[in-house]
């Protein structure tokens, strides 16, 4: 009896194990025997995840070619809508008019926050929401007012096409003004480089991009960590979306499906975002 149970147990375990490993291999298997090109453009926050996914797909099947460009969410939506690229990434939900105009299909595959960052050498660690609004509008222009050194605050902001900027402007600044003296950078990565090099800077970046080279600011005592975003205590959140013109088909559909597999969602997690599954 015991031996029989034991054998059944082992067989069940074995079957379950092989089933799960099959699911794992399946994730990339859909790309077997596929050929073609996938053109992706848009949000710069998405790039680490999309690049890793592309790498795995291409290593699995070298007949597939994937090109990835940045440019910001605006570019992603526009170019996908116009058919210049197959998948347009955006860090903000496309507007009603955009969806209608281009017949966009939107796919959300991660959740991200937008964090405010300063240089690690800066001793200012927390700000209130009002202070944030005043700093970015230029009203507060010296770190001394906030308890820091007597230096002018160098504000960095993103280019207009940026979804990160759109979300930050809406949710953190309540659609307030951004000072015209602000320096412009063109991507999340560029923002990070700028802030890490300028000791008197302040800017905003996708929470998934925050690493040791920059220091996050706690807004109303809440830091933009993954947990706080998940819990809902950090309010400046947004989803990472991929948009296609009309319903995706063929290779494009498979890529989008792949983004939503557990394997890819694991990539999402390792890159610092929150998976949706």
């Amino acid at each position, binding site marked *: 009896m015991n031996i029989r149970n034991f054998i059944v147990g082992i067989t069940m375990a074995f079957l379950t194990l092989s089933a799960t490993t099959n699911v794992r291999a399946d994730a990339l298997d859909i790309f077997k025997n596929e050929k073609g*090109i996938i*053109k992706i*453009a848009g949000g*710069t926050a998405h*790039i*680490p995840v999309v*690049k890793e996914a*592309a*790498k795995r797909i*291409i*290593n699995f099947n*070298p007949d597939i*070619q*994937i*090109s*990835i*460009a*940045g440019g910001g969410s605006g570019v992603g939506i526009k170019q996908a809508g*116009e*058919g*210049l*690229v197959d998948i347009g990434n955006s860090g903000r939900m496309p507007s009603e008019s955009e969806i209608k105009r281009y017949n966009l299909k939107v796919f959300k595959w991660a959740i991200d926050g937008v964090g405010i960052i300063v240089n690690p050498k800066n001793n200012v660690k927390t700000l209130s929401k009002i202070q944030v609004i005043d700093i970015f509008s230029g009203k507060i222009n010296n770190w001394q007012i906030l308890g820091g050194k007597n230096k002018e605050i160098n504000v960095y902001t993103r280019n207009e096409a940026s979804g990160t900027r759109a979300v930050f402007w809406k949710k953190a600044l309540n659609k307030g003004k951004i000072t015209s003296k602000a320096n412009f*950078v*063109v*991507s*999340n*990565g*560029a923002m*990070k*480089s*700028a802030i890490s090099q300028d000791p008197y800077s302040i800017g905003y970046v996708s929470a998934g*991009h925050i*690493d040791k080279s920059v220091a996050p600011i706690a807004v109303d005592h809440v830091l933009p960590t993954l947990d706080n975003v998940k819990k809902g205590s950090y309010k400046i959140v947004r989803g990472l979306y991929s948009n296609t013109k009309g319903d995706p088909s063929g290779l494009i559909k498979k890529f989008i499906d792949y983004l939503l597999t557990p394997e890819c969602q694991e990539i999402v997690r390792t890159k610092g975002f929150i998976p949706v599954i």
Partner: protein
Amino acid sequence: MTRPVDKLIIILSWISGIMLLGAISSIIGYLLVKGLGAIKFSLIFGETSPVDALLLKRQVFDGIFPAIAGTFSLVILSVGFAVPVGLASGIYLSEYAGPKIKKVFNFFFDILAGIPSIVIGLFGFSMAVFLHKHLSQYIFPCLLISSLCLAFLVLPYIVRTTQVSLENIPEQIRLTALALGATKLQNIFYVLIPKSLSGIVSGVILSIGRCAEDTAVIMLTGVVATAGVPKSILSHYEALPFYIYYISSQYSNTEELLSGYGASIILLAICSFFFFIAFLVRNRLKYHAFYRM
């Protein structure tokens, strides 16, 4: 008996010279110091083995091989477009055109030469979008459009060097073949062009260098951050100067920054190489031509 003013001028000139030398040495020196350590196979090929990458069997990630391949394709295509047209235009201007026409044409070429590269890129992008909407769904900013724009960029240089080289041939040589009964065309192809070859070729080589280093045009017409080796002329591609620009503004760790330095050294080496070859060609061919006389 040097007056104080004279002394001052000598000192100022020397100061200028030293400042310029200082500037360029610190720039190149800084680059070499920071980047020389990054030059190894993994910079170019990432984790893929060099043989696989070169035979295009596997795509390279985290390496600048696709960017090098992209720049290479770009240069070949642009020069392929620009040289025939530029050569022909140069020949026309020096051999067939009357002085008034010459003046008008030269004026336009000067303008073309002076147009900022980003304006040409803007033109290329608009052209691509326009064609995409009205001609074919498959046209979008790509290798083809970029190389056409780069061809526009270097066209004035090729025309000018061809024209000037041809014009500089002394009267005696120009008239000799004609006096012997050759037609104008034969004169051009058998006498004039070979004589001015050094100038023309150095112009072409300098254009090659120009195509390899330009960033503004390709930024607007199809270069992307990740695309692998370009598989067709209607595809997106990577390029070395764009890679450097991209890394400089958005490196995520010191490794990537180092690769930026390494890529800069490689780009600098490529452009210096072309420059050096142009210089050699000009001297070599001059020597041969002289010797044959």
